[in-house]
């Protein structure tokens, strides 16, 4: 597609369940980012994939959070044993690296509600 695609758009789950959120970046973008946006808060960086390099996981809040990027394209963010404080909108973004203008292109996010 032309833009960053995220699924599901909304996810309601019970505390303790695992969830997977998917991001399909813009074709040709080598960098992919995950951010978390909690109610009334700004965007919190979670993880960053850049080409074939090791991802920058410095923003992951706990070891219940993990992400992978297969084939340099689609990424999945997994949250294990979800907690109510995990409720947030999870935004994915992608960008070019070489010759880029610094801009990140965002998807519409996945809203996660943990009951």
């Amino acid at each position, binding site marked *: 597609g032309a833009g960053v695609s995220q699924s599901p758009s909304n996810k309601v789950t019970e505390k303790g369940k695992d969830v997977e959120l998917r991001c399909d970046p813009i074709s040709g973008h080598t*960098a992919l*980012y995950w951010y978390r946006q909690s109610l009334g808060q700004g965007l919190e*960086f979670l993880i960053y994939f850049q080409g074939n390099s090791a991802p920058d996981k410095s923003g992951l809040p706990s070891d219940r959070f993990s992400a992978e990027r297969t084939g340099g394209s689609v990424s999945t963010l997994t949250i294990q044993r979800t907690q109510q404080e995990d409720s947030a909108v999870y935004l994915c*973004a992608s960008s070019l*690296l070489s010759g880029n203008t*610094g*801009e990140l292109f*965002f998807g*519409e*996010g996945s809203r996660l509600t943990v009951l």
Partner: protein
Amino acid sequence: AQTVTQSQPEMSVQEAETVTLSCTYDTSESDYYLFWYKQPPSRQMILVIRQEAYKQQNATENRFSVNFQKAAKSFSLKISDSQLGDAAMYFCAYRSYSGYSTLTFGKGTMLLVSP
């Protein structure tokens, strides 16, 4: 680490009037990008305007312009001739000039536009 501060949680403006949103940032770098993103209720972050730190001229995009004061580390957004469609959350963001970096966001300013 870089930080971005938006001191106005909410601003109001009437249609056709002008409003200025404030942003300050802290960095030890000399080369970087600054952005204003808009987030409407659809959740998708949309780039409004971008400024490269090495450029002295303030960026302008139609009704949107910035006042970039590098020494003061200030980056305000001016919206002229405000329209109802401008109502949204606005985020100021910083990115290092290196391609291997993420965006650091402020907490956002909610802009309300009244007829």
